[in-house]
């Protein structure tokens, strides 16, 4: 410092400018080694400043504001950010979220006062006999009569759980209060035969009835519920009458002192429910079966106080611990793994934090983020099957205890297993999620915050297949015939875990490697009023299966070799029954084996192998008919299958094509044909330049074409007719001789194409036509469109001359389009094809998604189909879930979820193929995206191959436009709601495709009916149009390369989009639906030369747009093509009035289409009603 002062005295004006820097620099150096006293510096600096004159201060004001010397806290914070978080952003986001979920003081105050009044009320309760209780006892047990007297609680009620640890979490805040039964209520052998639980329930009922009469609680709503879907644990739910009741719920637990019974009575190997309770006989000589799960149930109450003490000591007063737990709770709840009897509850999380603290893996001063991270880290690498314990002096060997449970986490007393009801699969799922969370946090390239905390991913969206057994008769049958009695005693006859155990064991054995996990999907049970009987719950089962992509679709299950392991073979044979056959394999082995399909089966059929196995096992082992259970897999796959009304037999082709096929199964044929063509092209000898690369860019080359592609294309009177044209890009070898004039270059390209065509004809006898877009080639029933790509063309398109005569290359729409088609799309297409090879569900997911969007009348012009592909690819690429799905249906549900919950304006979808975006590039892109949001399209997609165009290549501001995005979000939400309700309800069947894949016809102003005989039907399974009944099908092939409907709609949009929006179904739609823009567009306006489009003069020298004139224009443009123009209301009325609606074809084949129509109508009643509201509300208006 002294040195600086010296300098100062010599040249004050100059050093002034330096001093500032000096301080910053000293402070900065101190930041490197951490502990220094930077505080001294600012003091010094202030002095200097004071000695200087006002003018100088002003001069350096700017520099000053930027370069304040950093304080110790700031340095610490910055370093914290760098070391712990990857960016400030994550840290700030976490901070914001914590602030958002922070409990508001009005709630905590209310809870405080409530507990006070409750304590007073409870202590004033009088002892009494049971008959004073007027309410139903919330327990479903066959009761034995015994003496029970209500005694006033001796200890005060206490807050437990989240309320005690200060980690209450909204939106519905649930405050748990424990009330201890006095010891005098129990006799010494009450621990046996469920007497404890009955007393507990009676006590709860008495408390409820007595409190209900007290003035302080009279107005509140009383209800019973089961804690964690456990029928032995009824709780009282109080909803306050005050305004807070909307968001607040108080639950009263009844517990007991731990001293009333010896804890050792509840060791896992002891029996506390004698078989006689259920009227069963037990051989005296045999040891009684262990009731470890029931024991844990009782121990939960007895050890509650002790455990609570430990949690309090860990969490009270430590904001960092509380916030850490809150973060974890948010994370857990978003994944819905904490639901129900078998859930991984937040209580376990809290105990685990206490455990980690005990193990000194967490420090008192760890930040909340560190806590969450450590927990994830530890959880990811943990193995609780061997058992861990919170107890300092574990009374019994952990390994012995662990043998009785799937997962073992002993509490502070060492007797109670916190994870007693947790199945292994759920624990494993939580571990996998934790591992994923850590990976996301470590990945610098993803903004993990929203993945971890914000995105809800309901458990069912992670399941590939779902099995539902809800039929009461079959449940009874399972319970009575197949469940082992000791399991029944163990769970005190609670059906759900028994079913779960029975089926998981069976399926696990039968499916083996095919399945990653079998998880129960539970729905929290709903409360019931205090004066009704307790409902019976758990008499249904929903199992979710996560499949292993590598093994799930194997066609063969091989048993042990007969000659080596005769016993094993016999057992195998017994397990599989008649399905098992002795087979001789190519390697010479002779083994028992079960064959489920043939290797050549279509992929969609192979995806159903697991379903086949499960249904067979249920039938063979448990005598459940397939009709008695619901197996949800591949229900929506039908939408991309070939329509049954097209008869494949009529097709002339050498390929073997079955009638029941789909777009996915037909794709390999196309690709084989394309490969053959590519070989032929490569072999063309006499071209002046070699062909270097050939790449297909049509969606079918990446398994993304939802309309089945049959080898139908043919030559009719010298014109190629084809349903679809497959685009192929050819690149030629380099040559310096290409002209540098666009016209000349294109002329030469065309000449080249002619030459290629001529040679193909000569050498390979292929038909070809030259057309404006390129070369149409007919091969084996497919029509290809070859295009030449040349880099010079791109350069010439970009070329511009600046004013100084310098040549520059600037992107413009034309060049961008060309670059996309010729250079980027081939690479993206390749990447997506590779993605499909890796995840077989990618292609079919895209197919379903595209079909869905098309069915909502969103065509390519409104929603580019490549956007669908890239969004689905994004889903498959990013690691949102531990397992990528193997089922297209689940993929589609996730796609809907993405559409429904994405924040379009804030999210950038980046497909980092091959990881080629560097961290810096991603940050830059995101930065520019955030700061100049308006310069990007409303849906922003970027891939690894279009870095210089980042985000502007695949979508534009018009497709999809903001209103379309909004509508898609709305539609997706609605569809998801339908799916979710049908999945989770025990009664409903899974949604039929007709419910999802048919848009509502409401909200449109005009419908232009087109002549059905001029438009060919789609080859997809057709679910009908929202406006008209099925018409005569027409599978005539159009001329190759002209999609008239698409073209005319494009024209209409170009010319009239200021006045109307146009919709049609690109997959065989035969109507054009029109919505007028708001009336303001049609109001009279003053005469202005530049705003005169479509206007006619009206009164007062003003002009206005006339709708009728526009309709005349539409008619003119669609001359000979439209049948009539009418409103949807008219159509509807017509259909109602005439039983047989007016058909625009002549009678034949009427009887056939009639049937599906009826079905369809029935099916669509539910969604259309709901949808009607939806449409009318916002979306349609928003579109204008």
């Amino acid at each position: 410092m002294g040195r600086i002062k010296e300098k100062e005295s010599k040249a004050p004006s100059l050093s002034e400018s330096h001093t500032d820097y000096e301080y910053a620099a000293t402070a900065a150096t101190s930041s490197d080694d951490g502990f220094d006293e930077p505080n001294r510096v600012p003091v010094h600096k202030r002095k200097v400043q004071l000695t200087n004159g006002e003018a100088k201060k002003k001069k350096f004001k700017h520099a000053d504001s930027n370069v304040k010397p950093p304080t110790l806290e700031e340095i610490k914070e910055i370093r914290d950010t760098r070391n712990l978080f990857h960016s400030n952003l994550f840290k700030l986001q976490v901070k914001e979220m914590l602030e958002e979920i922070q409990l508001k003081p009005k709630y905590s105050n209310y809870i405080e006062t409530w507990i006070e009044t409750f304590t007073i009320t409870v202590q004033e309760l009088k002892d009494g006999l049971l008959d004073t209780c007027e309410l139903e006892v919330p327990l479903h047990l066959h009761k034995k009569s015994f003496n029970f007297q209500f005694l006033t609680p001796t200890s005060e009620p206490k807050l437990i759980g989240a309320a005690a640890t200060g980690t209450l979490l909204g939106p519905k805040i649930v405050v748990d209060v424990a009330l201890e039964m006095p010891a005098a209520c129990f006799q010494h052998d009450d621990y046996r035969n469920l007497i404890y639980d009955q007393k507990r329930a009676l006590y709860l009922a008495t408390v409820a009835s007595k409190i209900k009469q007290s003035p302080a609680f009279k107005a509140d709503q009383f209800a019973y519920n089961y804690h964690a879907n456990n029928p032995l644990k009824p709780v009282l739910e109080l909803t306050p009458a005050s305004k807070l009741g909307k968001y607040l719920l108080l639950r009263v637990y009844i517990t007991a002192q731990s001293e009333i019974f010896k804890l050792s009575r509840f060791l896992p190997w002891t029996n506390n429910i004698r078989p006689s309770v259920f009227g069963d006989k037990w051989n005296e000589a045999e040891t009684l079966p262990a009731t470890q799960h029931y024991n844990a149930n009782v121990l939960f109450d007895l050890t509650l106080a002790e455990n609570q003490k430990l949690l309090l000591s860990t969490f009270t007063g430590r904001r960092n611990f509380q916030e850490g737990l809150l973060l974890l709770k948010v994370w857990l709840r978003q994944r819905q793994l904490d639901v129900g009897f078998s859930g991984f509850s937040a209580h376990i999380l809290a105990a685990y934090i206490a455990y980690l603290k005990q193990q000194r893996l967490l420090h008192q001063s760890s930040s909340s983020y560190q806590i969450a991270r450590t927990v994830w880290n530890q959880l990811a690498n943990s193995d609780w099957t061997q058992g861990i314990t919170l107890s300092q002096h574990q009374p019994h060997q952990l390994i012995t205890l662990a043998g009785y449970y799937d997962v073992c986490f002993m509490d502070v007393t060492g007797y109670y297993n916190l994870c007693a009801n947790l199945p292994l699969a759920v624990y494993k799922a939580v571990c996998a999620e934790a591992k994923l969370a850590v990976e996301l946090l470590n990945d610098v390239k993803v903004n993990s915050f929203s993945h971890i905390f914000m995105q809800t991913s309901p458990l069912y969206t992670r399941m590939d297949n779902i099995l539902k057994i809800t039929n009461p008769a079959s449940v009874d049958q399972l319970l009575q015939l197949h469940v082992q009695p000791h399991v029944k005693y163990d769970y005190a006859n609670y059906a759900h875990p028994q079913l779960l155990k029975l089926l998981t064991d069976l399926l696990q054995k039968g499916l083996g490697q095919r399945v990653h996990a079998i998880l129960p999907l539970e729905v929290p049970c709903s409360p019931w009023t205090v004066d009704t009987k307790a409902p019976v719950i758990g008499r249904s089962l929903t199992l979710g299966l996560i499949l292993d992509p590598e093994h799930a679709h194997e066609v063969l299950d091989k048993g042990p070799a007969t000659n080596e392991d005769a016993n094993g073979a016999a057992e195998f044979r017994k397990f599989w029954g008649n399905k098992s056959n002795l087979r001789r394999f190519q390697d010479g082995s002779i083994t028992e084996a079960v064959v489920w399909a043939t290797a050549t089966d279509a992929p969609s059929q192979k995806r159903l192998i697991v379903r086949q196995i499960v249904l067979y096992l249920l039938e063979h082992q448990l005598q459940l008919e397939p009709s008695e259970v619901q197996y949800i897999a591949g229900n929506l796959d039908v939408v991309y299958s070939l329509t049954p009304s097209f008869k494949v037999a009529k097709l002339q082709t050498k390929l073997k094509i079955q009638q029941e096929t789909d777009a996915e199964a037909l794709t390999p044929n196309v690709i084989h044909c394309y490969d053959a063509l590519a070989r032929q092209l490569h072999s063309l000898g006499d071209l002046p330049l070699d062909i270097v690369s050939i790449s297909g860019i049509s969606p079918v080359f990446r398994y993304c074409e939802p309309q089945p592609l049959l080898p139908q294309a043919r030559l009719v009177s010298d014109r190629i007719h084809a349903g679809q044209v497959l685009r192929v890009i050819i690149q030629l070898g380099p040559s310096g001789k290409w002209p540098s004039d666009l016209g000349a270059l294109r002329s030469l390209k065309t000449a080249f194409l002619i030459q290629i065509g001529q040679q193909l004809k000569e050498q390979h006898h292929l038909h070809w036509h030259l057309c404006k877009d390129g070369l149409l080639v007919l091969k084996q029933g497919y029509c290809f469109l070859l295009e030449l790509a040349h880099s010079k063309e791109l350069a010439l398109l970009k070329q511009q001359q600046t004013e100084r005569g310098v040549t520059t290359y600037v992107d413009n729409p034309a060049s961008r389009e060309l670059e996309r088609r010729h250079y980027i799309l081939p690479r993206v297409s390749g990447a997506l094809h590779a993605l499909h090879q890796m995840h077989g569900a990618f292609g079919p997911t895209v197919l379903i998604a595209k079909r869905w969007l098309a069915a909502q009348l969103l065509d390519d012009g409104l929603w580019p189909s490549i956007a669908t592909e890239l969004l689905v690819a994004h889903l498959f690429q990013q690691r949102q879930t531990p397992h990528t799905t193997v089922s297209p249906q689940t993929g589609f549900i996730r796609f809907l979820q993405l559409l429904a919950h994405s924040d379009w304006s804030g999210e950038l979808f980046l497909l980092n193929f091959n990881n080629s975006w560097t961290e810096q590039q991603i940050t830059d892109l995101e930065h520019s995206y955030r700061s100049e949001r308006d310069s990007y399209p409303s849906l922003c997609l970027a891939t690894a191959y279009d870095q210089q165009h980042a985000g502007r290549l695949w979508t534009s501001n018009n497709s999809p436009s903001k209103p379309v995005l909004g509508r898609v979000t709305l539609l997706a939400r609605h569809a998801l709601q339908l799916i979710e309700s049908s999945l989770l309800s025990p009664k409903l069947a899974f949604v039929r495709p007709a419910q999802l894949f048919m848009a509502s016809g409401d909200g449109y102003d005009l419908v232009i009916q087109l002549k059905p005989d001029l438009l060919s039907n789609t080859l997809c399974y057709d679910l009908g149009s929202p406006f008209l009944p099925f018409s005569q099908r027409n599978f005539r092939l159009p001329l190759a390369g002209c999609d008239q409907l698409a073209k005319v709609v494009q024209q209409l949009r170009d010319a009239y989009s200021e006045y109307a929006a146009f919709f049609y179904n690109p997959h065989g739609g035969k109507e054009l639906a029109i919505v007028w823009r708001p009336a303001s567009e049609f109001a009279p306006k003053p005469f202005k030369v530049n705003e005169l489009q479509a206007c006619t003069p009206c009164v007062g020298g003003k002009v206005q747009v006339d709708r009728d004139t526009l309709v005349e224009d539409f008619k003119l443009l669609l001359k000979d093509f439209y049948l009539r123009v009418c409103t949807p209301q008219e159509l509807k009325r017509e259909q109602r009035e005439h039983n047989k609606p007016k058909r625009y074809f002549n009678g034949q084949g009427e009887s056939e289409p009639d049937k599906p129509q009826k079905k369809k109508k029935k099916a669509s009643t539910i969604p259309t009603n709901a949808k009607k509201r939806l449409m009318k509300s916002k979306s349609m208006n928003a579109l204008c």
Partner: protein
Amino acid sequence: MTEIEGYRVVPLRMSPDAKHCHSVYMREHFIRLMDPNKPKGRTLFLLNVPPYITEESLQTFFKRVGNVESVLFAEKPGRDETAKWYEGTDVPFSNVQTPFKFKVAYVVFQKSISIGRALALESLDLYNSSGECLIKTGMELWHDDYENNYILDVEKTQKEINDYMAAYDKRERAALAAAKTSEADPDGWVTVGKDGRNAGFEQKESVIGRIESKLEKDKKTKELKNFYTFQIRESKMQNIVELRQKYEEDKQKIELLKKSRRFRPF
């Protein structure tokens, strides 16, 4: 006979019995800076021409008031609008079409007397004596378009290509010869091409950029970055400033996100 702001308003009828018609606004074309393609006194200016109207149809129609020299379209009135409208259509094999929008039209007559006659018209009837529309639309148009424009006749195309290439080669040779002469033009300027003895470097952005960046690099290598203490100090200070700036930026982002309520997990 309607007139509005000096424009004559006439209905545009596509068929004899058309009820709802577009109104076309006509007047004589007149602006101060005249375009040689739209000569003064002989050009009729039409506003609000529907998208499907073609040059030929207008030409055919206006023949009844006098011989038409040309018909030009533009998106809106303005100096270079016509050029913009037709941009790119002259390049062969490039699929560029004029936009399909409401437009304005300039009809250039051979004689100025035709203007007066045109302005006296009661309506623009784009149909012939038998009531048939002059413009092809709908199926007819698509079919025509497919046969004549989409599918190309090979021999004709080949001939077109040969002709175009021959013309192009000629142009190129002429340009090359002109570049080699290196004679001064009347103003005394000599064009220096990229060929020849006195070739300059190519006037391309990339080439210039490369040279500039090389100069920049040379300058940098000569400069010492952390030689003086103050330089080290400054770089450290810069570091802190950047960190702070980043922090502030992130904070702003959060503010933005907060507005869109993205922090409620449920």
